[in-house]
């Protein structure tokens, strides 16, 4: 706890609002879940999201019935929205893992209030991302051939293909993210079990809590498991998007074939992920009155991460242009000129505006403290990062080596439908999550309570220092 500087001068804001006790933290977070009164807004939100899910199901059905021809992909642009959206969603997922795992290992405890739903966001984003690679193949019913399993055909996948690496990277990532999230939930599930009034919910949460009693041995094992998972997840933050970038970097296509791709993709992923966390956190803390837990300090820190990773991404853009010139290859040079001035030039300049120019506003602390401005910038970065993937995928493919084969790519209504559908799915899952699970880690938040000055700080391991959640619940 020595690193805890709750009222640090640099941040200018605490990581938890004043006046909170251990009980008030538990009450305030768990009541969102346990309250019988579901806010009307939640129903509206869930309804809208379900419409999106309906669009998703329709788009998938149409696609499976007719084939990939319902999309705008063609010769030469063999990949379109599906891959763009896949990379975009995977990128968004990154912030969750980064916040939970890396910041945990770095003992950045300001992460505590946002890690739970950032992890949920990761999980849902990976689910949305997973829709695309499966559906973008011509014969999705045979997509399992990408898995190495013993079979009568005596065939293995082709291990040199980055698409195969993708399968491993993304499935590993999805598994570890899900485990990490679930393990982190266990103590809170026990709290909910103990506090739930209805027998049904007691049973459900009880089953999910895996018999957690808050014993010291439980905490010890929890700490070990959580630490190990964090250690496992940390390299994944780097590896997943590195592997995704190999899809492009390993190819021979100008605009794809670049060594800058892996770091640039990882930075881009964190950049877009934090923007998405901000996009979600700002309305949620407002709606559910969580300003005391997700404080200005959090928003400020996230803005700074966005600024930093944004600069790395822009360094990537600069290097792409530099190496196109420096390579001396006419194909590379044409690629960058075409990217800037070709038929899709608008997308490049929109991307530069969104990812390079607008985030510069975050240098100003006034902007970082302005919630509306932060929200707007986060949205702009989300759009910008989507455009980045559009630029990489489409403008590289549509004009490669032989001018005779150059063409254009125009997304169809079904491209949009599937994209909007996954956004619907994402929010659908998110709405379910905030209603049925504690979106902020209760037990971890309670470790911050000493910082409010209401209760004396305790010594020792920060988690073990607090009493077990069940014990807490028993307090009258």
């Amino acid at each position, binding site marked *: 706890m020595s690193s805890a500087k709750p009222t640090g001068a640099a941040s200018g804001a605490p990581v938890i609002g004043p006046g909170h006790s251990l009980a008030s933290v538990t009450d305030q977070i768990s009541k969102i879940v346990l309250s019988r009164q579901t806010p009307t807004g939640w129903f509206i939100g869930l309804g809208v999201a379900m419409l999106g899910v309906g669009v998703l199901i329709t788009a998938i059905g149409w696609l499976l019935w*007719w*084939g*990939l*021809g319902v999309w*705008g*992909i*063609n*010769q*030469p*642009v*063999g*990949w379109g929205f599906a891959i763009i959206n896949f990379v975009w969603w995977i990128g968004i997922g990154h912030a969750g893992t980064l916040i939970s795992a890396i910041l945990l290992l770095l003992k950045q405890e300001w992460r505590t209030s946002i890690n739970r739903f950032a992890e949920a966001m990761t999980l849902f984003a990976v689910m949305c991302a997973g829709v695309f690679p499966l559906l*973008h*193949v*011509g*014969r*999705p019913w*045979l*997509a399992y*051939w*990408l898995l190495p399993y013993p079979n009568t055909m005596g*065939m*293995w*996948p*082709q291990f*040199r*293909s*980055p*698409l*195969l690496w993708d*399968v491993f990277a993304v499935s590993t990532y999805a598994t570890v993210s899900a485990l990490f999230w679930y393990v982190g939930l266990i103590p809170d599930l026990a709290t909910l079990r103990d506090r739930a009034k209805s027998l049904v919910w007691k049973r459900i949460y009880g089953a999910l809590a895996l018999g957690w009693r808050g014993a010291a041995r439980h905490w010890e094992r929890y700490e070990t498991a959580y630490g190990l998972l964090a250690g496992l997840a940390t390299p994944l933050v780097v590896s997943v998007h590195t592997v995704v970038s190999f*899809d492009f970097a*390993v*190819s*021979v*296509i100008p605009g794809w074939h670049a060594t800058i791709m892996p770091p640039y993709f990882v930075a881009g992923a964190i950049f877009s992920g934090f923007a998405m966390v901000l996009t979600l956190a700002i309305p949620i803390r407002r709606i559910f009155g969580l300003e005391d837990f997700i404080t200005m300090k959090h928003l400020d820190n996230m803005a700074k991460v966005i600024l930093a990773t944004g600069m790395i991404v822009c360094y990537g853009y600069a290097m792409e242009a530099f190496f196109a010139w420096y390579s*001396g*290859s*006419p*194909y590379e040079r*044409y690629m960058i000129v075409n990217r800037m001035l070709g038929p899709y030039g608008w997308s490049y300049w929109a991307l530069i505006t969104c990812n390079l120019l607008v985030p510069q506003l975050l240098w100003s602390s006034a902007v970082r403290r302005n919630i509306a401005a932060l929200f707007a910038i986060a949205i702009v970065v989300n759009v910008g990062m989507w455009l980045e993937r559009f630029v990489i995928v489409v403008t590289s*493919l549509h*004009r*490669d*080596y*032989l*001018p*005779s*084969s*150059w*063409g*254009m790519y125009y997304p169809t209504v079904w491209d949009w439908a599937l994209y909007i559908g996954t956004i619907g799915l994402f929010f659908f899952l998110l709405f379910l999550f905030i209603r049925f699970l504690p979106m902020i880690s209760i037990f971890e938040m309670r470790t911050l309570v000493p910082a409010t000055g209401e209760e004396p700080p305790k010594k020792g391991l920060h988690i073990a220092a607090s009493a077990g959640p069940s014990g807490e619940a028993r307090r009258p």
Partner: protein
Amino acid sequence: MSHTTPTAANDAPRTGPWRSLEERAARVGGSEPEHSHEHSHEHDQDHDHAAPRPSNALLSSVEVARRDFLRVMGGSLAAAGAAACTRQPDERIHAYGASPEALIPGKPLYFATAMPWASGALGLLVESHMGRPTKVEGNPDHPASLGATDAFAQASVLELYDPTRAQLVRRNGAISTWSAFLDEFSALLEAQRASGGVGLRILTPTVVSPTLHAQLVALLKTFPSAVWTQWSAHNRDRARAGALAALGVDVAAHPDLSRAKVVLSLDDDFLAGPGGVRNARAFAAARRARRDTQSMLRLYCVESSVSITGAAADHRLPARPSVLAAVAARIATKVGVATAALPLAPEHERWADAVAADLLAHRGECVVLVGLEQAPGLHALAHAVNHALGAVGQTLRYTEPVECASVDQGAELRALVGDLQAGRVELLVVLEGNPVYDAPADLGLRDAFAKARVRVALSLFDNETTQLSNWHVPATHFLESWSDARAFDGTISIVQPLIAPLYGGKSSHELVAVMAGAATAKAYDLVRAHWQSQHEDDDFESAWKRALHDGLLAGKRFSARSVALANAATKLAVATGDGLEWVLRTDDSAYDGRFAANAWLQECPRPLTKLTWDNAVLIGVASAERAGLASGDVVALTIDGARLEAPVWVTPGHAEECITLPLGYGRTSAGPIGTGVGFDAYVFTRRSGAWSGAGAKLERLERKHEFAPAQEHHDMERRDLVRTLPLGALDSAKVHPALAHGETSLYPPHAYNGVAFGMVIDLNSCIGCNACVIACQSENSIPVVGKEEVINGREMHWLRIDRYYEGDPSDPRVLLQPVPCMHCEAAPCEVVCPVGATTHSPEGLNEMTYNRCVGTRYCSNNCPYKVRRFNFLAYADLETESLKLQRNPDVTVRTRGVMEKCTYCVQRIQEKRIGARREGREVGGDEIVTACQQVCPAQAITFGDINNPQSAVAKLRTEPHHYGLLEELNTKPRTTYLAKASAPNPQLVAGTGEAR
């Protein structure tokens, strides 16, 4: 064999082909056992009745048995198709009790036949799989083919199996029967017989069949007052008039390009179309550039439109018709032919003078060619020029024309329309052709047609003419009927059927025989009897057998006719008028309209414009700019009172102040494929027979038309894709200097021991005629995707021809490059496939395993040549029964979601390899012939074993101008190119200051 439940038979949709109304009626209504009996009985009867009874011979016995087999198969296939695939057919089916001799199941047989054209037959060898013709090849022994074909012949096999072919005799549109037709037709003829046929008119396309000609001549003896009229839209009328004016006799001029050093084409697209095959062969041979080549044939081309001949020219002058006439007059004057001078711009004068000087320098080794579309005066002038240049007898040979009866078709048609309008025609019999569609618009044939009391049309398809006819008798396709046809040089080919008529059609021979009173005569007997009567020797049978086997009758070539110039002095008439000049042209895909319903041809990118599924008003770049027009703008086009709304296509290299109107589109009755595609330029055809004129007015309408070009970008972007090198310095081929790092790799090179397949494409020979594109489509069962999907960029051709423009857009150099799969040794596609569906064979083939492909399209993205094709939708038509018969049984049909691409015709490789293995040897260096290679009229494609130093392909790879496309990427392509060679006239290079 077995009888299944009758209820199932009634439930199933009856969509399969059937051969007669009786059969159909029986199938729909009849009770099962009885039906089965009837069916087999009918076959037996048919067989006895129809099969020829040769006294001798292997070939004929195969023939009989094969056709017999087909009869049975036809019926049972239809039933099998109509019902679900798990049922046995309702009808009695016959086992292959006694296999026909020479037929090994799974092995194709080849039969010689010929495709008849107005300009002479094209000899063919047709591949037959178990009685189904699947692929057309050229007949190497035939003088018009020499083993190659054009795109039309390649697509003819699709025409045969077209499900929209006319399948029933129809009376005023309603279903009728052949016997009902015979009853009425015989009565009508009987009525005519009394008057000597005064009300009888027969309209045919140009007849090149001696048998049909003899039949018609005999018929006209029975009906002395009847009139036989010939009409083909793209006819020889103007050339005929020109020959008559200059030489006094109607002769056809045949250039001998093998002896020519300099050729001047006055808008003669002699490399394209039905006659282009043999010309392309000779032209390519005369221009073949190899290490030691010192000189090659030089081609000058003056043309108004754009053509592959113009693209192949060393010097091409885009000139509207009036300028073309003036250039021709200037050249004529310079070489000593007296003709009135016409006004000419100085730069054109310079061009004409340089050409004239070159022609004079090659006296006796040069020839001037004139397009069929040109005015008689220009033909006459060219005869004079060729005489003056000593070409006649050296590079030019005169023979009698190919038509059996050469007439002024325009005059004949005018007379017919006159008779029709006067109500003198009682019975009009149209034997194939589509005169209602393609007759000159101002003749008013469409209106006059209905004035004939009874109109009978024999036609393969429903068309504009059958729509206005009382009777429509379905015709036989040339692949299912007996006939004969003369080639351009008089060589006779016997047209052999490869399959029994699919829909019980009748041939022209049979219908004429009906008119002559022999209702049951069979085309086979008629053709055979005709040649038997012509035969002088005793042993006709062996001569006949030989003719069927070889595809031609020996000793029937025309001898050269020596003709003297009768009238040298001519004055060229030049059309004048306000507005743009215009030219009409047959289309590279639809020709005169007859192929408008052929999906392969419709989707085949036109050689120069790369348009598919459309024709367009072609206009030059500067003219379009002046008129404020862009490609796709719809204009109202007015010529001589006729008005049409049509979209324009801005065409680099098109003559300025001039438009081209491709014929053959805007069909109103051409089935689901051809109806309503493009606009009908026939509205501008006139009784004068002029194919060009002046006074076209364009008015831009505020409307756009969406074209489906297969290639959108025309500039090579300074990339080293199509290389052009000066003849004599062919070793100056260098890779792009910035990328010249040679082959570098961290890995040791892979050793290819044994056979290593490779292909070399000679860009100097390729004329871009598209024959290879359609041959590939036919050989590999490549689906058609339709206009929408071409717009979406999803055309499926495994072999495409890239076309680039270089230089001034008004007069660019056109560069053509066929691009199949490169079969890279270091193939970028292979490493990225996650399931290993595309792999490398030990011989260096880049193989595609369709079964394994899950369709990630990563391979296509990573292919620098973009030769891979993806089944975005279910493109292959797996339902239409007749199309199933067409497919190559050695090639897998690809389903939705699967990638495909050029395989180097791996099925042909396997066939030869198996053959070689059985003989215990390696496959020969030149033994395997790919479909594109076999069809190429210019012999531009060479395939074989690059490890065998004796193979043609290995030798070509050592040529100095040999290079690989994008070889700087280290893909090590197995398909490589020979650079284009240039040997321009130095005078013209200096004169125009343009380096070519």
